[in-house]
């Protein structure tokens, strides 16, 4: 003799498993995902020019 409680528990288990199943499908597949158009019509970059400029040594004046 199976009680009503056992039937309810089984039905609940079935519902939970169905939800898990749907969740796995949603996460693991592309269902419902929107990848957008991916269009990109401009781009930019930058480059650096650097230098260290030291002072020119003083020219020594001769004395004859």
């Amino acid at each position: 003799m199976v009680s009503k409680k056992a039937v309810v528990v089984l039905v609940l288990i079935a519902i939970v498993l169905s939800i898990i199943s749907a969740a796995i499908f949603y996460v693991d597949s592309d269902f419902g995902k929107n990848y957008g158009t991916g269009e990109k019509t401009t781009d930019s970059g930058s480059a650096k020019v650097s230098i260290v400029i030291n002072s020119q040594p003083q020219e020594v004046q001769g004395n004859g």
Partner: protein
Amino acid sequence: MAENNFLTVVAVIAVVLSLLNIGIIIVKVPVIKERITGFASSGYVNVTVSTQITINLTTDTINWGSGVINAGQENASLNTNGALTATVLRGNWTTTPTAIVIANIGNVNASLTLGAGKTAATFFGGNAGDQAYQWNVSNKDVGSCNGGTEVMNTWRNVNSTAVPGKFCAQFGTLLAANEIYLDIKLVIPKLATLTGAQSDMITVTADPAG
């Protein structure tokens, strides 16, 4: 009683089916995805490839290091030479810098404009006649850059036009024709008022071709 037993059987079947469902999904989703993206025996696959303008500065730094103008000289001249050794005249800066390299790695032709943050006057100060800050755009790959309003293969003062100069109207994307050199030349005056560490940023902008 009979109704209760029937419900029990239905519930058990539901549980078993749910378990089976989970198993099928876990096993088959990757297979389904693979078939959607790569399996076709016949029929149509409708794919739209979006426009992608993307540039990559594969060499983005020119660092001349530390140096001084040779004694008795009015200025020193430094310039990169594509991938070759740089030229340094009348000074002792390093000759290791190579040109900036710009590649079109998008999927469509693009136009290319350049802008510098400084001019020779704001880079060095001093006498305008003894100094220069110039660039020179040339093809690294033959046929990479075409149709710009700025002259290629010629040293030109940076920012010589009010509007950033367009060097390429058609900057190609083919693998063998999608790279250009941006060489830089500095003429440093003996009487530079801005000494010590100096730098500038050059901005490269890619827009739709034409």
